[in-house]
Structure formats: structure tokens, C-alpha cells
């Protein structure tokens, strides 16, 4: 028989209230992927678990197997991301990260690289003090989330003919899932213009790690252009708009 209790690192990416004082948590774990678990009594002020199960915390959870849902029995927070939750812009970015992860991943499909990516991205959002640098982090997240979910955009080879791309490529095709070369542009419809600097930035972000991304000095306009391309690519996969984008845009005015 399997053990009744088990322990796992987790990121809390969504919560909803149920019943008198309970909550359902959507957590992302390295070995079990995305899970929905129950946290009992956490809306009472006397709950000793409540403060350890806030949205976006990185925590070590102990869970008890339940008939339908597993139940949280203990939570030891590894990182609260306290700066993140005291700043409106960072909160809106974190909501977007969490919603993207939630919408892009199926339940119980393990992906430890995706766990590490999200954990590192939340830590970077917590740490980085300017919106410009946090925007680069966001681009890095969007790109690698697509990649790790099996939708890696084509930035090195033409999305249509698969020939290696050179610097003359300047169109992105959401439908083909990447950049198309000059020869193939005519064969796909609905392509978007892509500047050379945005093209280079996206290639660099895709190849490197988060520290490489943070070593860059990216102008807000360039981050915005890359962001536009990635949002279109994400929308192509998700087939809908994310709810948290509206709030993000509202704050950025």
C-alpha cells in the first residue's frame, strides 16, 4: 500500500474558497506536476496553516492522500517572496505568471524543469527592482514556458521549410509557430513584422538561462515588441486571452 502521507516542494498558483473555511489550492510540484489539493480551515484567523499557504509561496508541503483530493497537513515555506507581495506591479506580474502556468499545463503531468523555471522567475520578480528588468524576466518565462510545454517557437530554423534562418528573416507567423524565411513568407498568411533586435533578443533568451537574460540591458520598447510576439504565440496555443492581462495592462497604463 502507498504511504498515506507524502511530502513535496510546491508553488501555490491558484486558490479558491470552498465551504465554511476551506480552500482548494492549485499547486505546481516538480514530480507530480499540477495538482489540486484541499486546505481545511485555513480561512479562520486561528488557522496555523493559513499564513503558510498564501498565493505564490514556494513551500515544502506534507499531504495526506484523500479519497478524492489530497489534504495539506503541513507547510514549511522556503520562500515567501515578501517584496513581491508588497508591490502592486510585481503582484500583477506574478498573477500573470501563475495564470499562464495554470492554463498551459494539464493536471498531474510532471515537468520538473517547468517547476524550476517558475520558481526562479518568481524569485527574480521578487528581487528585480525595475519594471524594465522584470519585463525581461517575463519574456524569458513566456518563451521557456512555451518551450517546455512542447511549443518551442522556431527562431533558428524557418518554421515552414526548416532551413537555417539568417538576419534577413523579419516575419513571425503565429500559425506556423515561429519565424519564416524570406522564401516562405508568401506561403503563410497573417505574419507579423519582427525587428532584427527583437529577433536577436528572442534567440538569445531561448538559448540562455535566466541569469543571461538578466545580464541584458533591454529597452522598454524592445521588451514590448518581444512581448507582443510572445503573447500572440501564446494566444495561438491557448486559444483564449488570459484574464490577468487586463490588470497588468491597466497598471502599466
Amino acid at each position, binding site marked *: 500500500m502507498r504511504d498515506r502521507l507524502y511530502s513535496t516542494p510546491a508553488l501555490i498558483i*491558484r486558490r479558491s474558497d*470552498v*465551504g*465554511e473555511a476551506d480552500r482548494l489550492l492549485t499547486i505546481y510540484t516538480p514530480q507530480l506536476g499540477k495538482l489540486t489539493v484541499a486546505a481545511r480551515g485555513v480561512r479562520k*484567523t*486561528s488557522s*496555523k496553516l*493559513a*499564513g*503558510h499557504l*498564501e*498565493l*505564490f509561496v514556494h513551500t515544502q508541503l506534507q499531504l495526506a492522500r484523500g479519497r478524492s483530493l489530497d489534504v495539506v497537513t503541513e507547510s514549511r*515555506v522556503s520562500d*515567501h517572496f*515578501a517584496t513581491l*507581495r*508588497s*508591490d*502592486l506591479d510585481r*503582484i*500583477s506580474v506574478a*498573477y*500573470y505568471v*501563475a*495564470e499562464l502556468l*495554470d492554463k498551459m499545463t494539464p493536471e498531474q503531468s510532471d515537468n520538473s524543469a517547468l517547476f524550476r523555471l517558475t520558481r526562479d522567475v518568481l524569485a527574480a520578480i521578487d528581487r528585480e527592482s525595475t519594471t524594465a528588468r522584470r519585463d525581461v524576466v517575463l519574456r524569458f518565462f513566456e518563451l521557456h514556458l512555451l518551450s517546455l510545454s512542447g511549443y518551442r517557437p522556431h527562431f533558428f530554423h524557418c518554421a515552414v521549410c526548416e532551413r537555417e534562418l539568417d538576419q534577413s528573416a523579419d516575419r513571425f507567423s503565429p500559425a506556423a509557430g515561429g519565424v519564416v524565411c524570406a522564401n516562405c513568407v508568401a506561403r503563410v498568411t497573417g505574419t507579423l513584422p519582427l525587428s532584427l533586435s527583437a529577433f536577436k533578443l528572442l534567440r538569445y533568451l531561448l538559448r540562455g538561462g535566466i541569469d543571461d537574460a538578466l545580464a541584458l540591458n533591454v529597452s522598454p520598447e524592445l521588451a514590448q515588441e518581444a512581448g507582443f510576439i510572445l503573447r500572440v504565440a501564446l494566444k495561438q496555443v491557448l486559444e483564449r486571452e488570459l*484574464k*490577468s492581462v*487586463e*490588470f*497588468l495592462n*491597466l497598471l502599466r497604463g
Partner: protein
Amino acid sequence: MAIGYEHVTAEPVARLIDEFNRLPGIGPKSASRLAFYLLRAKPEQAQRLAAAIIEMKEKTVLCSRCFNITVEDPCVICRNPGRQVQQLCVVEEPLDVVALERTGEYKGLYHVLHGAISPVEGINPEDLKIRELMDRLKVEPVEEVIISTNPNLEGDATAAYLAREIIPLGVRVTRLARGLPMGSDLEYADEVTLGRALQGRRDM
């Protein structure tokens, strides 16, 4: 929502079970327990319940000033000349007004937002009574806005958003202190709560 009672339960009972099941915190088991209780209860009791529900829906409105639930507009608190108009306490839900009133510590007025910002659920500032709050601040002699949204991420996001909007008007903005609940144990407190409790410590 089909919950499996339709085949064996008389249709009117099944319908009531179904309605109870839609209420927050009531699952299919509790729903059928309530329905069967009412089935056996005296007719007057069922009548009283039905009448109470209808009366509540028909006779209550939102106060046009503070947006609390009331029978008469403006509500008893807004009408009370003894309340201090310089202080305005902003809360998420009408039930929070009840909780604050029970303390007996607060003599100012309220403003009920009817929710908190939650981008993932699509609840943005324009879905709350925030524009109405800003309108009040323009015409009322408010000197301090006490933000009493819940001490969780949604409540904090709402508080931060309100502060950003209100401070430029030259009105003092305060947030309820965060600390340790009565009867709790230090050992189980999370770092954020304990950290803020330490920052907000008081001389004895």
C-alpha cells in the same frame, strides 16, 4: 446539476435539493438532509423560511453612499449624526462591517467594495465600488481612509491599488495593522505576519 436523486425522489423534493446544492458550502448530502428536514417540518416553518428569503430579496437595497446592505437608503450608519465623517473605513464585504462594528472601537463611516481585486478571476478595479469611493472622497470631508481589506494577496493588492489612487488627493491612507491573532501560538506564525508584528510592536 444532476446529482442522482431524480429517479427515486419525488420531483418537487429533488428540485429543492437541487436548489440547496447551489448554495455555497452545501454539497449534495447536506442539501438532501435540509430538504428532507423541511419535508417533515411543520408547514408554518417552511412558510416562514420561504417568506424570509423573499422578504430579504425584496426589501434590501445597497446604501447609495457606503454600499452596505440596508432596508432604508441611506443606511443606519450613514444616517447616524454621531459618526465621525472624517474617517472612512474601506472593507471588502458587508459582513466585514458587522465584524468591525462588533469591536465597538470604530466611530467613523464605511465604504463596501463588494470584493477584492483578483486578476485571475477577472475581478479588476472597475468591477468594485472604487469609482464610487473616489467620488465620495471628492465631496465628503474625509481626512483618513482606513483600508481594511483582508490580509491576503487579493486584499493587499486592492489596498496597494487604493493607496496609489487616493494618496495623490492629499488624504491620509492607513492600513489595518497585521499581527498575531488572540489565542494563537508564536511557533506557528508565518514569517510575514511575525515580521510585521515585530515592526508594529507597541510600548507597554
